[in-house]
C-alpha cells in the first residue's frame, strides 16, 4: 500500500514482462504437447496442427480490429443521450 506511486509504472511493466514470459512458456509447452496428444475435432480441419491456437489468435485479432472499425460508426460522446 505504501509503495511510492512513481515506482508503480515500472512495477506494472515488470509484471507485464513476467506475464508475457509465462504465456510464452505455456505456449511452448502446448506446442510440444501437440506432437504427443491426439486432439479430437468435430471436423478434420480442427485436428490439423495447432488449429485451436491459430483460430484463437486470429479470432482475437479480428475482434479487436472490427472493434476499432465499429468505433468509427457507433462511438459517441459521453453526453450523447443527455
Amino acid at each position: 500500500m505504501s509503495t511510492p506511486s512513481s515506482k508503480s509504472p515500472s512495477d506494472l511493466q515488470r509484471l507485464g514482462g513476467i506475464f508475457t514470459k509465462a504465456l510464452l512458456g505455456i505456449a511452448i509447452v502446448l506446442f510440444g504437447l501437440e506432437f504427443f496428444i491426439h486432439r479430437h475435432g468435430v471436423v478434420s480441419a480442427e485436428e490439423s496442427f495447432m488449429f485451436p491456437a491459430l483460430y484463437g489468435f486470429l479470432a482475437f485479432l479480428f475482434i479487436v480490429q472490427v472493434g476499432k472499425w465499429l468505433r468509427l460508426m457507433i462511438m459517441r460522446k459521453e453526453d450523447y443521450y443527455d
Partner: protein
Amino acid sequence: MISHMPPGLIMILAAFLLPVIPHVWRQIYMLGAIALSAYGLFLGAGTHLVWTVLGLDLILYQADALSLPFAIIFHLAAALNVIYSWHDRDWQQHCASLSYAGAAIAALHAGDLVSLFVWWEATAVTSVFLILASGTERARKAAMRYLLFQVTSGVLLLAGAAILASTSGDIRFTKMDLGDAATWLIFIAFGIKAAFPFLNGWLQDAYPEATPTGTVALSAFTTKLAIYALARGFPGTDILIWIGAAMTALPVFFAVIENDLRRVLAFSLNNQLGFMVVAVGIGTELALNGAVAHAFVHIIYKALLFMSMGAVLHQVGTIKASELGGLYKKMPFTMVCCIIGAMSISAFPLFSGFVAKSLTMSALGDAGIIWAYFVLLFASAGVLEHSGIKIPYFAFFAHDSKIETGEAPIGMRVAMGIAAFLCVGIGVFPSLLYSILPYAVDYHPYDAGHVTSQMQLLIFAMLAFVVLVRLKLYPPEIPSVVLNSDWFYRRLAPMVGLPLLRMVMLVWSGLLQQMRGLVNAIWDRLDRIMHSPLAGPTVSGRAVLIQAGLLTLLLLIAYAAAG
C-alpha cells in the same frame, strides 16, 4: 405447511418486515428467509399446490429435474447477494432484492402460464427499484425504459396464455411447438427477458445504472429465468440456434470498445446467454444439460465479476476503464477474485466455465451443427477478450491511475471469496454439478485432447493481446457511449417520430383552419340573406335563424310521423 408453500413466496412475504428490522439483524433475517425457502425444495419433484380459480387450475408449486438446479442456484445467488450487501443500511434495496429473488424462485415453480405471468411481472416491478436506488436522473430514465420492456414481455406472455386458454383451455406450462400466434407471443415474451438480438437494449442500458449491489442481484435472476422458461417451453426449437449464435458473436464487438466496465459485463452477459440459447435450441439431453450447467456456473462467475467491479465502484466511485488502472496493489483480494471470475468465464480448465461449456460444445459437435460450433468457438475467444482480459486488465493493471483506495468492506470480500471458491470447486469437481443436472450425465471434460485444445485457443488468444499491447495497437479506452439496439427507441424513434408528429399536427391545424374558413363563408352568405331577403321580414340574428331552422325540422318530422 411452509414446505407446501411455493419456494420463493416466503421470501416475498419476509420482505414486508424488512423496514422495521434494524441493520445487521436484517441481513441475518434475510438469510433465514432464504434458508426457509430453500427448505421447501426438499419436498422433491411433483405437483404440490394447485389453486382452482375461475375454472383455471393454477399450479403454484410444481418441481422437477429442470426446476431444481435453477432453484438451488437462485437461492445461492440470493444468499450471496445478502452477504455482499452486508454493509448496506438502505432497507429499500434489501426489500427489492429479496422479493425480486423470491419472485424469480416462485416463477421457477409455476406449473401454468398464468402463475408464471404473475411471477414474471413480479420480477420486473421488484427489480426496477434496484436501478432506481442509484438516485440519479440517468438511472431513473433507464429504470423506466427497463420497466417498459419487462412489462411488455409480461403482457405478451399473458396474451399468449389467454389465447391458449380460450382455444384449448390448457394453460399448463409444458413444451410448445412454435407455430400459432399464442406460441409466438410467448416465445417473444421469453425472448425479451433472454435479451435476444434487438430485444436486448434494456440489459446493457439498465444493469450498469443500478447500484453496486443491485447489479449483482440483477445479473442473476431475470435472464436466467428466461433461459429456464425457454428450456421448458421451447427445447429443440431450431431457430434458437440461429438466435443464440448471433447472441454469442455480436456483443463481443461492442464489449471491446465499451468504456464502462459494468456495461462490458452486461455485453458479456448477453454473449453468455447466447451459449445457453444455442444449447436449448439443440434440445438433446446433453445440450439441455449444457444449458442448465452453463446457467448454474454462469450465475456464480458473472456475479463474482459484477461483485468485483461493484467493489471497485464502491471504493473508487467510478467504473470507467479510462479512469481506472493499477489497482492491483490497493485491492489485491478483489483483483484475485476478479481474475478467478475471469478465468471461469473464459473456460480455463479447472474453472467452472470449462466443465459447463464443454457440454454445449460437445452437443453441438454430436448434432453436427458445424457452423454454430465454429461461431461459438469464435465467441469463446471473444469472452476471453472482454471478460477474461479487458475487465481485470483495465481495472487492476493497464496504467497507474494514482487512485488512493483500500479493499472493499468485509461483506463484499466474503461474498466474493465464496463465489471464487465455488468457481474453482466446481471446476475441479464437476461431478458435483453434473449430479444435479436434469438428465443422467456420462461426460468427462478432462481428457487430454480436450484440455489442450481449449488451452491452445485461450493461450494463443492471450498472446494476440500481448502482441497488440506491445505494438501499441490495442485500442485505448476512450470516455464514450457505444450505441446499441436501445438507440432505435432512444434516438431513432424520436428523430423520425417527432418530425412525423409535427407534420401530422401541421396538417391537422391546416385542416382546422380550412374548416373554420368554410364555416365563416357559409355564415357570411346566410347573414347576407338574413339582412336582405328576397321577400318577407329580415331575421334579427344567427340564433333566431338556428331556432327557426330547428323548428322547421321538427315540424317536418312531426308531419312525417303523423303521415
